[in-house]
């Protein structure tokens, strides 16, 4: 008898997912909620609050299935929050949700749940799983809600344990279902990025949780001349236009962040485009592809590309220039709507050959 564990945040999508499984199947089920932080008042605005846990438990009680709370605080701190901080200090713009899926949800948490006796895990992600043996994973049917991008780094063997009932639904249908079945109270809870930061602002989070003091430094143009001052390099991301405080005939954009020199490089818009970028490794869910398309941000349109294996990893040549290719962000590869895999963007060097390896020289405190 297949036992399916349902990941429940207390939010609308996972609540509908649980309800569907209970009402439409005869499978052995139990629900679980992971606890990533303390349930204290100051964390009320994060996802780990008592209200959300209460919703999950109450729904399981209503559906007549067991519920378990699984403590992942330590692992989350080590594998998601710490690397998140280190990435910013290294001048990158990290994507913690992708890391969390890879290291926590579809890895350590999965293994805990399997040890409890589950065979599969169901979640409310908007992703289509096609096939039960050797499955492939495709964008969710609702293009506005597709979450396949965030699965690009997940290990293939682990991902194959997951079912995604909502992949075939549009959000509007999920909402209708929720209204009909009295699940709409879960609506106020939606998991969000930076779930662990009540401020939802990475700069404030870093300020409150590390020893790091942003140091003002120089802003240079592409010729290497100083054109202004920045307030601390972690306050900026590639492609950023606002907050530079430089007057110039045309708008200027952040082209590069150089942590070891504490410098930013800015330039006019035409300098923001890249025709290629590099990656250290690619997590392929199936066979490597010589030609496919790549998506460089959540919700940005994919572009045809050719990934090429090189000595230090991979070089991805793009069929058309893309603006603001940002180290640390996830590049997700697709064949049409089918997710092929992905990895982190290492660098997108400018013509004048910058983009060296950087190290975080300031260690965040716990």
């Amino acid at each position, binding site marked *: 008898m297949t036992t399916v564990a349902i990941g429940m945040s207390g939010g609308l999508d996972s609540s509908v997912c649980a309800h569907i499984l209970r009402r439409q199947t005869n499978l052995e089920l*139990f629900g679980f*909620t992971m*606890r990533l932080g*303390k*349930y204290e008042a100051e964390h009320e605005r994060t996802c780990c609050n*008592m209200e959300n*846990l209460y919703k999950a438990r109450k729904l399981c009680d209503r559906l007549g299935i*067991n519920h*378990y*709370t*699984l*403590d992942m605080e330590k692992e989350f701190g080590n594998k998601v929050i710490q690397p998140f901080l280190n990435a910013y200090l290294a001048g990158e713009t990290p994507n913690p949700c992708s890391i969390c899926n890879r290291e926590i949800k579809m890895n350590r948490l999965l293994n*805990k749940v399997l*040890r*409890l*006796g589950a065979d599969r895990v169901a979640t409310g992600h908007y992703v289509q799983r096609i096939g039960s043996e050797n499955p492939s994973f495709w964008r969710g049917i609702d293009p506005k809600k597709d979450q396949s991008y965030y699965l690009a780094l997940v290990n293939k063997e682990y991902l194959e344990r997951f079912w995604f009932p909502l992949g075939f639904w549009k959000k509007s249908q999920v909402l209708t279902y929720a209204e009909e079945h009295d699940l709409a109270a879960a609506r106020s809870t939606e998991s969000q990025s930076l779930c662990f930061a009540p401020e939802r602002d990475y700069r404030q989070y870093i300020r409150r949780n590390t020893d790091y003091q942003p140091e003002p430094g120089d802003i240079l143009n592409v010729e290497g001349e100083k054109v202004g001052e920045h307030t601390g390099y972690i306050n900026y991301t590639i492609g950023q236009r606002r907050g530079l405080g430089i007057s110039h005939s045309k708008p200027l954009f952040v082209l590069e962040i150089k942590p070891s020199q504490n410098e930013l490089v800015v330039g006019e818009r035409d300098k923001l485009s890249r025709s290629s970028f590099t990656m250290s490794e690619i997590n392929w869910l199936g066979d490597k592809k010589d030609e496919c398309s790549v998506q460089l941000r959540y919700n940005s349109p994919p572009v045809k590309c050719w990934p090429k294996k090189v000595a230090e990893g991979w070089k991805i040549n793009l069929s058309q220039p893309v603006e603001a290719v940002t180290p640390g962000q996830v590049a997700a590869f697709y064949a049409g709507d089918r997710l092929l895999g992905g990895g982190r963007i290492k660098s997108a060097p400018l013509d004048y050959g910058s983009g060296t390896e950087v190290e975080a020289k300031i260690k965040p405190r716990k």
Partner: protein
Amino acid sequence: MNLYCDYNSTTPLAAEVFTAMKPYFTKHHGNPSSRHQPGQKSGLALQESRRKVAEKFGVQPEDLLFTASGSEANSLAVRGVLSGDQVGGKILTTAGEHPSLQLCFDYLENQGKRVLKAPLDENGAPPADWFRENIGPEAALVSIMAANNETGVVYPVEKVAEIVDHQDCLLHVDAVQAAGKIKMSPIVQAADLVSLSAHKFRGPPGVGILIAAEEVPLTPLVFGHQENELRGGTENVPGIVGVARAVEMIAPEKFQSVRTRRDQLEEYISDNLAGIQIIGRGRRRLANTCGLFVNGIVGAELVMKLDRAGIYISAGSACSSGVSRSSEGIQAVATATGFAPDSFVRISLSPQVTEKKLNNLAETFCRAVNEMRT
């Protein structure tokens, strides 16, 4: 399967207790302090309950205080005797005490009191000699539990009482876990203050008892006229009637019979699982308790896995919101034995457990551990 093996965390309310309590919810709701008949009826029930409990424990009715929990009885005992001019008075206790006392002692330490804690040996018990070595004229209070809730190991209360006897120092015994399971009279006779909790011996939750000899000076935690001005608050008459009935039903000699089942369980586990250590085996222990480390598993996860099979045990100090933190006592024993603190689980059997259910428990436990270890 629906096998409750977490007797030490709480016990099911005895039917007779519920029967005794019910009229004081439904019919006789008077306030015992009132002079009219409804009040008098409750007042009489309160008085009778107090007499029953006193008689059972061999103390005077005026030596008993009813509280809302064992934890409150603990706090009242410790803070009640240490308020006021106990300047410089040091406190001797152990590393295995219940959080209601650990946290109280932490607080008192922050307030400047000296608190010394006896270490635990690999059986989870404090050596009585430690008290002999560390007591002295400055000792104001010794606080020691009668039996540890997690391991079931019985602490050397009588030996410590002898040591305390020669000093001008008070002895408090937290008997919350022990009452109903071992004979209380030696403890009650030896100690100045004894804490008890109704829901550990089939009484209702929300009722505790502090036995405090009348001459022990106590400063209240909760002020008011009730309980001889030592513990204010309108009395929980149904609860007190309930605890009195439960106290009447206490029979440690009958409780002892569960020892056979517990020993069978431990033999089966020892024969069928490697990498385990049962704490206190061969030492004096509560007859129903088996606390053990299991290599290669996380206690909290084993609890959940067995829950799926309808078997209910416990692991360290877990709580339902998912935060698990081993107690100081378990950490101490873990260090002494070389096991991971979070690999601890506790099986505390109900005295009603049948041989058939016991066998089921033993087999399922071992199977679950093996599955989690692969």
